[in-house]
């Protein structure tokens, strides 16, 4: 195989194999340019970056001196501020905008994020890197079982698949059965969906007498919209009989990391993004590879609404060893859920992602679940509400209740109340799922 043939596994064979030092050099240069642009064009950053000289930023240590941007600051810079809708975050004239998206609002009031034609194309370009790494090619017919609405991920995925040369079939205005029929009818080879909806489609397919492994033509799936613990990814692979890839992104940042064919961690989309890991406590001290920290990201080419050192509040670790796929970019492992979801219960740090790992990884009989945190007098109580496959009998349920309680105890050091609910009672999510409810805040 010639080097040119070999390079077809990369969207950009040059950038994706650049050595880390060269990637960092490009990122630092772009960071300085973005800082200068933001200081000059965005009223929010003009204030926030007062006293910071972009030309002084030469190393990652210098970058760490620039203040982190929090999501609450974005809300405050928008709400009631001019120009209408985007407020002090906007760094281009309003008439140059072409695209609107917003955050889901799960952690507060939604943030509105616009793009110019140029910045939108850049976001789509980064998704091309992601899809290409996940094996999406011209020969694919990609089905998107969603109405994308005002949420960014699937729009980016749609246009990136189109740009790669795939044939894109939007499946928004259909119910789940209609979508399954459509993907069978057109022999879709690839899917983009949330992990939760991927699991739900299996349930519905079976009700329809369709086995996704045998009766559909799907070969690969890329997930978006919510975190996907490894047991959930493996379960999707097993039940669909396809390769399942994850990526990380958000409305504010765009998609900034994705899985390659090795499926071991996710490659940061360098040098389009500057990625940092900082200490959980101080939010400034850099964290070495292998240690848990909080992810901080800077999209380097989205000039219309600059975002500098955005605190993603995701707990992760950087993987140390090089990836056999040949990409030289940093790889991250999304391991600890979101900082916002972390709770200290009876002296123990608890992340709801633990429940998903245990249930999806060890109990294929479970169809849906949710975790509820309540307070009884002074004691916090964790309750797992769980639905099983209708074919499970009373005797099996009794045994499952015991085993689940035991496994959760081992994994989290906390005791759970287990509540079995009838099939179909718990909500099914098509976009971002919400399986953790903290009722102690009410």
């Amino acid at each position, binding site marked *: 195989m010639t080097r040119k043939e070999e390079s077809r596994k990369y969207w950009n064979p040059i950038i994706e194999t*650049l*050595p880390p030092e060269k990637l960092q050099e*490009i990122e630092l240069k772009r960071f300085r340019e973005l800082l200068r642009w933001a200081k000059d064009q965005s009223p929010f950053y003009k204030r926030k970056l007062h006293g910071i000289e972009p030309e002084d930023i030469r190393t990652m240590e210098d970058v760490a001196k620039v203040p982190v941007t929090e999501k609450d600051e974005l809300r405050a810079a928008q709400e009631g501020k001019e120009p209408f809708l985007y407020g002090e975050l906007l760094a281009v004239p309003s008439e140059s905008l072409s695209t609107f998206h917003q955050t889901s609002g799960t952690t507060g009031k939604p943030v509105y994020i616009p793009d110019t034609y140029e910045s939108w194309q850049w976001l789509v370009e980064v998704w091309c890197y992601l899809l290409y790494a996940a094996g999406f090619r011209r020969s694919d017919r990609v089905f998107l079982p969603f109405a994308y609405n005002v949420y960014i991920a699937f729009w980016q995925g749609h246009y990136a698949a189109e740009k790669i040369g795939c044939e894109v079939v939007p499946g928004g205005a259909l119910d789940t059965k209609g979508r399954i029929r459509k993907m069978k009818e057109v022999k879709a080879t690839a899917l983009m969906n949330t992990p939760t909806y991927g699991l739900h489609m299996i349930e519905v397919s079976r009700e329809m007498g369709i086995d996704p492994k045998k009766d559909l033509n799907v070969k690969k799936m890329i997930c978006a919209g919510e975190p996907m613990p490894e047991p959930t990814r493996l379960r999707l692979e097993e039940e669909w009989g396809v390769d399942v890839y994850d990526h990380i992104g958000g409305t504010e940042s765009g998609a900034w990391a994705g899985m390659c064919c090795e499926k071991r961690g996710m490659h940061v989309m360098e040098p389009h993004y500057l990625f940092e890991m900082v200490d959980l406590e101080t939010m400034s001290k850099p964290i070495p590879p292998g240690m848990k920290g909080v992810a901080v990201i800077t999209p380097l080419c989205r000039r219309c609404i600059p975002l500098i050192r955005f605190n993603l509040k995701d707990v992760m670790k950087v993987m140390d060893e090089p990836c056999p796929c040949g990409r030289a970019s940093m790889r991250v492992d999304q391991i600890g859920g979101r900082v916002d979801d972390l709770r200290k219960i009876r002296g123990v740090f608890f992340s709801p992602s633990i429940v998903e790992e245990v249930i999806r990884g060890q109990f294929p009989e479970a169809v849906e679940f949710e975790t509820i945190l309540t307070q009884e007098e002074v004691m916090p109580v964790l309750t797992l509400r769980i639905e099983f496959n209708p074919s499970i009998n009373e005797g099996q349920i009794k045994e499952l209740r015991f085993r689940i309680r035991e496994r959760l105890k081992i994994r989290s050091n906390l005791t759970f109340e287990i509540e079995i609910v009838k099939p179909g009672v718990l909500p099914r999510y098509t976009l971002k799922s919400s399986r953790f409810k903290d009722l102690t805040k009410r």
Partner: protein
Amino acid sequence: MIGEESMEYDLKAMDLEIKAIEEETKRLKELGRGFEAVERNADAILAFTYLLKRNVSDIIE
């Protein structure tokens, strides 16, 4: 230092072409000032030359 993959591609020649396309498109846009079908399509081309610069030119600078 640039990765081995770059050896089979003439990045400098590509960079020159990208910059030439950018300059020509800016000129076209200027010639079509007020002519929406020309201006907007020229803007679209410029958005793609921006991406080509990020994909190619930035590597050799």
